[in-house]
């Protein structure tokens, strides 16, 4: 295992210590239970937004805490959803009296832990709305399974809901926007290499030099199919087709196109991916009105990419453009 770490069991703690000394102007880091909270929380009268999940997806979620995005993030162990006590403390820390939105990615662990935290918070008199993100078209949607995973749309939902909360919209409105974003967002990912979970010490799966996994999630889990590696343009077609046909997006739709690195894929390749994704979207009559390109929701050092498309309307565009000031996303301020 080649990583810039000390002891595997200290990875998350030391990462948080790094964040604490790096961004004291933006965030405060609490330990035991671990959570990252806006330096100016709680903000009276503003809906608080809390998210969280396993570590290893940086900058998500901790890097998205700050003005115009999350009020708090709860990092679990690497790829392990955090625990209800973290979520409860984070919720209390950001409660400004207008209620708190939990943005939860659709994993059994995240769902159950956030459910318990919401129950506990409600018991303390805090109004809670929970919205589950399940945008991964690589997984068949079904009532009889855990359903779809929550992936790239999470980042977009956090930005957009953060802006809505900043405008002092009500808990119900912010939660409704979150549901709309989830309903309008679709993602699909692929991996060229596995990642290595620090406490495991070797790659989660073996992928021969000439093969790739299509339909991976963000936890180093294998994808839906393994196949020979192909040119970028063909790979992008394999990711875009199921996205576009799933919603389905219609000619004339305005969309945000988000090309994400799984962690180990550099920007030079992302632009090659973006070029083709943009071409395909345009060929389908979609109007790419906004975009995001970079490593925003990662799987440690995994090489690969995911593409997320989000249908936009005027309100979403305005919320997307609104100022954001976090360690991981910043503009307009």
């Amino acid at each position: 295992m080649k990583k810039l770490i000390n002891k595997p069991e200290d990875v998350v703690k030391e990462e948080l210590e790094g964040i604490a000394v790096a961004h004291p102007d933006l965030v405060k880091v609490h330990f035991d239970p671990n959570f990252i909270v806006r330096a100016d929380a709680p903000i009276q009268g503003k809906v608080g937004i809390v998210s969280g999940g396993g570590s290893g997806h940086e900058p998500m979620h901790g890097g998205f805490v700050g003005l115009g995005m999350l009020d708090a993030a709860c990092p679990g162990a690497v790829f392990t959803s955090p625990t209800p006590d973290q979520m409860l403390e984070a919720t209390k820390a950001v409660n400004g009296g207008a209620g708190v939105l939990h943005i939860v990615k659709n994993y059994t662990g995240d769902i159950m832990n956030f459910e318990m935290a919401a129950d506990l918070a409600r018991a303390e008199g805090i109004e809670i709305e929970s919205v589950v993100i399940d945008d991964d078209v690589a997984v068949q949607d079904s009532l009889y399974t855990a359903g779809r995973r929550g992936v790239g749309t999470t980042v977009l939902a956090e930005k957009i809901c953060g802006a809505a909360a900043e405008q002092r919209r009500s808990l119900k409105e912010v939660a409704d926007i979150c549901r709309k974003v989830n309903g309008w967002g679709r993602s699909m990912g692929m991996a060229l290499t596995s990642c290595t979970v620090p406490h495991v010490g070797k790659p989660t799966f073996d992928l021969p030099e000439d093969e790739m996994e299509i339909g991976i999630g963000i936890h180093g889990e294998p994808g839906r199919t393994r196949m020979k590696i192909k040119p970028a343009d063909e790979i992008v077609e394999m990711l875009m087709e199921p996205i576009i046909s799933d919603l389905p997006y219609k000619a004339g739709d305005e969309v945000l196109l988000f090309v994400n690195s799984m962690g180990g894929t550099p920007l030079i390749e992302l632009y090659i991916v973006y070029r083709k994704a943009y071409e395909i979207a345009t060929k389908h009559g979609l109007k790419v009105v906004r975009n995001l390109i970079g490593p925003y929701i990662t799987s440690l050092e995994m090489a690969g990419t995911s593409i997320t498309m989000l249908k936009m309307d005027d309100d979403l565009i305005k919320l997307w453009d609104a100022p954001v000031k976090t360690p991981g996303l910043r503009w307009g301020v």
Partner: protein
Amino acid sequence: MVITRDDVLEWITRYAEILAENRDYLTQLDAAIGDADHGANMDRGFQAVMKKMPEMRDKDIGTIFKTVGMTLLSTVGGAGGPLYSTIFLQAGMKTTGKMELTLQDWIDALEAGVNGVKMRGKAELGDKTMIDALVPALNALKQAAENGTTLSDALERSARAAEEGMKATIPLVARKGRASYLGERSAGHQDPGATSSYLLLRTAAEQWKNN
């Protein structure tokens, strides 16, 4: 023919050791169809439980179970955290104030735990989860109690039933939990949660075999 408070503490202690020994094995299983953390999660949780030993030592079994449950809840995370925590919290409610457990007490406690897992996780038998080890084990215990077997015999049967249930997860296509994202590709692998549940019941059978 009863399980004493000390038996319970020894069982928990031994299970923590078993988890440490099987940490990599459980993680391997989880790497194949999940995210390679089940061993580490369970081990972290039960190490935290072991730190609570001093304060649990002189408590009743209900309090012990509830302490284990609360500790797991705040240290394990993932799907395993709330589920194992639920088993112990629910078992704890059924055993409040008790200093020893009869076979029937143990059945009641486990049943409450298993029902809690079903409620929380909404998994059915055959979904390729820990339910597939827990439910057969519970049924075997009940059957043994009806047949009037000894406590140790009943425990052995429940461990065997858990083992069979665990092995039966191998061909299944997962319908719940992280493995379900793999669809057909999840078949051919043993479920990690069913495995840790089997180990829990196997440890009970070994630990309490002279009771």
